[in-house]
Every structure is written in C-alpha cells, then in structure tokens.
C-alpha cells in the first residue's frame, strides 16, 4: 500500500526532517509511527498525503509515485485517503453534519445517499446527537471524533492520523483508539503517528529518531 524508498526530506536550508528512509506497509496493516517531537512523524504523513514532496527518493502510495504526481491527479489520490491532521482543520462556520458532508460534496455523491453516509459516520464516532451543533460547541474529544468521521465518511482504503489522541483524557483517548481498531478490522490500512504507542498494542511500530528509522 505504501512504500518508501530511500526517502529524504530537507527543509531549506539544512533541516533534514527525514533521511534515506525505506520501509513498506502492506494493505490492511495497522502501523504506528513513534518518536520524539521533531523526529519526522508528521513529515512522513504529509509525504504520504502528498501535502509535500520528497527531496530525494520515491514515495509510492497505492502504486502512485507522489513525487511525480501531476496537479490534476492529486485530488483523486487524496480522495482515497482519510486524513486526521494534528490541527483538525474543521470548518467552524458550518455544522457538524456539514463538516462531514464536505468530502462527499467534493466527490459528487448523490445527495440522498450522502446524507445516509454522513449519519452512519457520525453514529460510528458517537456524534449522532450533535449533528446540528457547530464545531466550536464541541469538546476536544468530540472535535477529534468529528475529524475522524470526516476522514472516514468516503470509506477510504487508507487512514492517516497525526497524534489523534493528543490532548485527550485517558477515557476519550480509549474511545478514539477503539474507533481506529474498528476501521482496521473492516480492512482499512491505518497509519497513526503517536507519542503514545502503548495505547495501540496490536499495531506494528515504526520508530523514528532524527529522521531515521530505529531498527526493532
């Protein structure tokens, strides 16, 4: 599903976020990426989502080379991903329901089916009762779950999450972990960057240190 082949990412002038990183993630796997702050976890996820391009090496996602992806092809790669970013990028001027609806509007889903899908996604993360609320009225944990609902509503084959349990209390974090496990069981490839690996005991772990993999 994902293959990194001697991937480096340098931020000018001399900040090497990742250096000569190689690994592979199979379809249906659940993997955590751990490491200290600044180890390159977020950069790695941003490369997979084609938010950034590698300075050297090749990143293959679902058979497509991120480095040589055309601007026109980019949206169609993004549609196969579910993204839960660290700053969740919720739209605060529209309701919970409309936030989750956005990916389906973008792909041009028939409105009636889309409504059902949005309700199903909100139900899955336990936000059914809050669909009319504005994101600002939600707690931190609820906002996180909303971001997850938006990431999965179009049923992506790959789910990327950057620190999804940060700033959450233990119980809420467990809820979020449970949701990720459910998607994994449904066959979705799940990749989570987290400082808190013990919370995902079943996942394979990739440890980063200063942009390099630590062999396990």
């Amino acid at each position, binding site marked *: 599903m994902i293959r990194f082949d001697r991937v480096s990412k340098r931020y000018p002038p001399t900040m090497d976020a990742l250096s000569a990183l190689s690994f592979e993630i199979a379809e249906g796997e659940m993997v955590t990426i751990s490491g200290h702050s600044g180890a390159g976890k977020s950069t790695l996820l941003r490369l997979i989502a084609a938010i950034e391009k590698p300075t050297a090496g090749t990143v293959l996602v679902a058979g497509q080379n991120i480095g040589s992806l055309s601007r026109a092809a980019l949206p169609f790669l993004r549609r196969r991903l579910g993204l839960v970013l660290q700053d969740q990028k919720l739209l605060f001027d529209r309701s919970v329901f409309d936030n989750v609806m956005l*990916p389906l509007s973008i792909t041009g889903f028939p409105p009636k089916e889309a409504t059902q899908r949005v309700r199903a996604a909100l139900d899955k993360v336990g936000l059914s009762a809050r669909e009319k609320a504005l994101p600002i009225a939600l707690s931190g944990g609820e906002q996180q779950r909303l971001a997850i609902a938006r990431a999965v509503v179009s049923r992506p084959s790959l789910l990327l999450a950057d620190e999804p349990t940060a700033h959450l209390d233990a119980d809420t974090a467990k809820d979020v972990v449970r949701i990720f496990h459910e998607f994994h069981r449904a066959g979705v490839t799940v990749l989570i960057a987290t400082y808190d690996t013990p919370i995902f005991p079943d996942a394979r772990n990739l440890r980063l240190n200063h942009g390099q993999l630590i062999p396990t």
Partner: protein
Amino acid sequence: MKIWRHQHSQALLAALRRLSKAPLITLLSFLAIGVALALPTGGQLLLENVRQLLNSTSATPQISIFMKTSARREASDAVRAKLKNHPNVAKSQFLPRETTLARMKTNTGLREVVEALPDNPFPDAVIVTALDDSPIALESLAKEFRQWPDVAHVQLDSAWVKRLEAFLRLGRDAMGLLSALLAAGLIAITFTITRMQTLTHRAEIEVSQLLGATAGFIRRPFLYFGALLGLGGGITAWLLVAAATFWLQVPLGDLLQLYDISFVLQPLQLYDTAILLSASTALGWLGALLSLGQHLHHPNA
C-alpha cells in the same frame, strides 16, 4: 448529469450565501459596477435615440438655388435647362415665385404681412438633389451654382445632417473606447472582491484541497460569485439608465419642442438590455477567473 447539476446549484447557493453575508459590501459593489456600466449604456442609449431622430428627418441633402428677385423668368428657365443636363444632378424641382407666395398666404400668421407688401418678396427657386451627396461634392456643386448669372443665393440644405452623422460616428467610437475601459474597470472590481473572498475562505479552500477537491470544484462558487456581482452591477446600471431616462424625458421633450422636433426618448431596448446583462455577467466571471488564477495555487497543492 444529475450530480453535475447538483454540484452547480450547490456552488450557486454558496455564492448567493456569500453575497448576502455582507449585504453592504455587496450593494456597494453593485453600485460601483452599475455606475461604471451606466456611462457607456446611457451613451449608447443617447446615440441610438439621435440616430433614430436623424432617420426620421430627410437624410438626403439638397441644394436650394434662389434667383434674384429682379431676374426674369427666362433666367430661371436657363438655370433649369442647365440643371437638366448637368452630369452631377440627380433631379431638380422648380418652385415659381407665385407658387411660393400662394403657399405663404395660406399661413394665417404670414398672410397679413405678405399682403401688406407691394411686390412678391419671394424669388424663383430650384431645389436640387445631387447624385453624389458627400459634403465635398455638394460644396463644389453649390460653388458652381453661385457662379451662374442671376443666382442670388445658394443654400446647402440638410448638410448639417451629414455633419451630425460624422459626429455620431465619432460618438460611437468614443463610446466603444469608453466601454472597453470601463469593462476593464469591472474586471478589476470583481478581481479585487474575489481576491478578498478567497482570503476570507482560505480555511475552506485548504480543507477542500486536502479532501481531494479538484481546482474546478474550488473555483466554482467563486466564479458564480463573480458572475453574480457582474449581473447585479448590470441590473444596477439598467436601473440607473432607466431612472435617468425617466427624469430627462420631460425636460428634453420641452427643449426639442423649441426646435419644432417632437421627440420621445426611447428607453433601453430589449436587445441592448440583453447585451448589457450578459456582458456584465461574463466580465464579472472573467474577473473572478483571473483572480483565482492568481491566488488559488496553494503552494502545496
């Protein structure tokens, strides 16, 4: 097809929401575009009216030859004979002085004056229609007639019509230039407003790009926004011109009455209205498109 329609109606709704969210800015934008468009539109309206006025008057210039009152009928006959064989004269009409006198006597106001005169004050006259009615040809023809014996006065009738037509052509060209300039102004206005919109909706644009929105999807509501701005401005321009027409109708009629011209200012025709509205909509759309081309390229997208 159904989905395509749904996406477009969604984009249109989004554009309408954005316009209604800041009603004051929207109205002021309409006014700015409307005033800019009202100038060429009003000019076009005036030109069109003057043109129609010209068409209703005789546009073929004629030359009037007045004989000396002392001249004898033979002199007039000689002139008529010359005109008949003149290569540049299409036709000529002889008005004997007696006929003119009789016609003037039918005018109630003039009858007493005319009857009080001892002699017939009117000369024999010939009205000439030239083959070539260009001002230069007419002028040289008139010059030639003036040389003839016993001719008192040669007058170029309706030459002013030609001059006015030349002025009208100039007016049309000037209006074309003005339209082009103000069209550029309209593009500049929608360009700037759309730019402000993209800044306001930066978060939405960024999230949409992350979720796999195509450039077309992101552009669509902004393009509708620009087109609606243009359309609103066009409607404002139409209203401004209609109001001006309404206000000027009576004073203009009164003025022209003094020149013995009965005239009703025609409002903007359906055809011109259609052109105004479609052009303003298209220009608004274009302004938005140019603005998006400049500012939508996300560094990472």
